[in-house]
């Protein structure tokens, strides 16, 4: 059976394509070293539109008359006040552009103008080297280092020193343990249960938060938070799995990148990357459940615990409540052996 995989790797080769939402300008070159917040490409997004009805404004009966009087073509840029159409003659009626814009369509005696839109900046997302430029679309950034993937993020990107606000993976982050010494850092903690911790993270400000979990009631606040937030386990008060916590601990005070973009449809997951001078292997994205694997438990009462897959029972087992499922035997880190549905596990690879 194909197993869901989460990467918690001390050393891996990481390659990420960073793409603009449309066509734009590439600002980085192949071979350039970039950090996570470096802008590698930019684009001007389409703005709002203005419809100018030439036929109606000039009081013309026929569409063709309007088209004869329009002095511009599709694709032309116009400045506010530029003439779009005029009747000519001694006392001409003139239609001028109401704003700086581009003509995007002309039909049935009407001109559609597009105003300049927002400026979009594409960040590198991780500390690494630009290995490829995808013309007008984006770049590929590569690095070697430690990789820790999460399950949810608020879509922000940044980089900074990795620091810990807690000593154990099940400890809560609250306003009290976010002090000035953590300012400008990416901070690791067990979970956040109260909104004031998010407020404090923005006030300091932090450059990132890496959590085991966050209360579902805070999802909306976390989405609005300007600090990148990555969650490794899910929603609630679930401790961070020890494999991730230990690996992060070994990189305390190191320069780290955090990219919390999250789009499960496209396999995009939030991640922490600590670039290292050694060479790693490309991680496996597809594995089958196999005895001996390190697995993580996704469901209560063992959420976030890790263990070793010691057996996959053949056939299906009936659980209380009548659920009939394929069951795996897991030996937890404290040597306790438990049985769980295979579907409640993912493989740490």
């Amino acid at each position, binding site marked *: *059976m*194909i197993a*869901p995989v989460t990467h918690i790797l001390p050393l891996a080769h990481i390659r990420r394509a960073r793409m603009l939402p*449309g066509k734009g300008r590439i600002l980085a070159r192949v071979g350039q070293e970039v950090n996570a917040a470096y802008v590698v490409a930019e684009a001007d997004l*389409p703005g*709002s*539109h*203005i*419809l100018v009805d030439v036929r109606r404004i000039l009081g013309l009966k026929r569409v063709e008359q309007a088209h004869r009087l329009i002095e511009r073509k599709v694709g032309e840029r116009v400045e506010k006040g530029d003439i779009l159409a005029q009747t000519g003659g001694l006392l001409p009626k003139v239609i001028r552009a109401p704003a700086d814009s581009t003509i*995007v*369509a002309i*039909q*049935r005696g*009407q001109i*559609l103008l*597009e105003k300049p839109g927002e400026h979009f900046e594409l960040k590198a997302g991780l500390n690494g080297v630009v290995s490829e430029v995808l013309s007008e679309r984006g770049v590929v950034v590569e690095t070697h280092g430690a990789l820790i993937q999460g*399950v*949810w993020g608020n879509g922000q990107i940044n980089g900074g020193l990795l620091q810990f606000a807690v000593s154990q993976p099940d400890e809560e982050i609250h306003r009290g343990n976010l002090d000035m010494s953590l300012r400008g850092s990416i901070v690791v903690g067990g979970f956040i249960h109260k909104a004031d911790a998010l407020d404090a993270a923005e006030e300091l400000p932090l450059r990132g938060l890496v959590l085991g979990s966050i*209360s*579902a*009631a805070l*999802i909306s606040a976390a989405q609005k938070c300007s600090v990148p937030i990555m969650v490794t386990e*899910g*929603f*609630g*008060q*679930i401790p961070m799995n020890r494999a991730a916590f230990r690996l992060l601990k070994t990189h305390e005070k190191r320069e780290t990148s955090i990219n919390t973009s999250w789009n*499960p*449809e*496209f*396999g*995009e997951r939030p991640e922490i990357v600590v670039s290292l001078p050694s060479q790693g292997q490309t991680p496996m*994205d*597809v594995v089958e459940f196999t005895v001996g694997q390190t697995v993580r438990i*996704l*469901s*209560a*009462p063992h959420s976030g615990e890790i263990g070793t897959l010691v057996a996959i029972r053949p056939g299906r087992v009936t*659980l*209380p*409540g*009548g*659920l*009939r*499922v394929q069951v795996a035997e897991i030996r937890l880190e404290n040597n306790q052996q438990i049985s*769980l*549905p295979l*579907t*409640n596990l993912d493989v740490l690879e």
Partner: protein
Amino acid sequence: MTTSLVDAESVLAIEIGSIHTRALLFDVVDGQYRFIGAGRAPTTIHAPFFDISEGIHLAISHLQEITSRILLEESRLILPGKADGSGVDQVVLTYTAGQPLRVVVMGLLEDVSVESARRLAASAHTIITEAIGLNDRRPPEAQIDALLRARPDLIILSGGTDQGASRSIAKNVDLLTFALQIIPREKRPEVIYAGNHALVTPVKDVLSTYTQVHVAPNLRPEIDVENLSPAQDILADAEFHIRSRQIGGLQSYRSILAVEPLSAPFAFARMIRFLSRINNPGKGVIGVDLGAGNLIIASAFQGNSAVSVLPMGTGPGMAQALRTIPISEISRWLPIHIPESVVEDYLWHKTLHPTLLPVTTETAAVEQAAIRQVLWNGLNQHRTRYPNTPLLAEPILAAGMPLTQWSPQTSLMLLVDGLQPFGITTFVQDAHGLTAALGIISTNNAILPVQVIESNAFVNLGTVIVPLSNARYGTSILKVKVEYEAGNQISLEVRQGSVTALPIQTGQTARVHLQPLRPITIDPIGKDTTRSFKVIGGVCGVIVDARGRPLSLPTDAARRRDMLKKWAAGFGA
């Protein structure tokens, strides 16, 4: 019933769900079509595969393992089947995977053509991201901006009775052509035109310069006549066309399929319509299929059907459900105390890990509570959308793992609490998830679905009798006499507010006599003469649900939990 099969062929039905891909095998056994087995594998539509082929291959391999029938040869499906019994003769495919199609509806009157376009869109796996009508007060450029922001995959353009309004439709077409010119070609939405039939040619001529245009019969040929069914077939075609670009590998399977692939909601609805034709003509048929992403509700009465695809499920679909359902509405179904924050955390957690199965009493209770409320909200939305949805249904068919994974007693309890049926209803469980597959197979093989339904592939959970009374809680309202075929009989009294199981074994036939002790109503819309009838016991026997409609849960939490436990015991859950 025995039917001679002249052209007996084995059929492999592939179903691409949002979480799992399944391969279902049907073949002829002793002269009758039978369901042989199902293989299952994760759907591989997303990373790292981005192609459904791997999931299909694994599901067929699993099916091969289970049935010991050779279906693959050097990793290729053996098609057609060989004389040695290996392979299959036909393949069909249904799908629900993928993000909902983003749809913009455009029409004239908000409560007429725009509303019909909304209803049409809601019969598929869609999300309506913008609606533009005649009474839209926004200036045209703002409407164009709104249309662009909506990022549609599909636009449904309706309005005007046949030979009716044309100028206002032309205005909408102008708006649309402006928008289409701005959108890059590869991102342009397709268009279904389902308005004034007299304008088909000019509308198609203008719009097809920019995009694919599908023409459907007018949704409102007359102002007070709505005609959705033919347009639903066009929508199914358009959906497949769009999905073929979005779902990696879907197009490549087309060449081996016996019929065009169909999205599962349409196939599911087709089967419910089919059942309504062969069942009790006085009652309708309702089908519910709850998945991780969506809830499909299909209803049919005398061959006319309606289907709603609601963005509510027990996985990613829970996120949408939680945006519309307050946690307190879910928590009220909990038979044990669990803080609302814990309920909320668990349900959101499931949106991240949709395959999670509840293994503790608490998580099972939360999931069961959410399922009841999702069913209740879903059916009410369906009834609002389709006011002609039959109040009395026979049977109610339930499919989807979140509904069928429990013990039969628990499944029946969730269905009855969530759907709150009236009258006398049999609940049938599609434990193997065959309904949509049978729906698409019925396109070119009408015998197979009938024979599979008549086999034991579907589980009769039980018949539920709902006597309605105004009596106070605890009052005896009904005396029930059960007369068995062997001649023996038992009697028992039913109290207002109770759930009572009648001791009728699975498959056992008995006659039930109802003797009211207080004024009661069984059939709230008919002549209500149903006092003595024959029943066949389901897995959960026969249930008398005397709790009233709609179910009223005590506001006191402790009392409510006690009541829920008593009701569960009544179902045997």
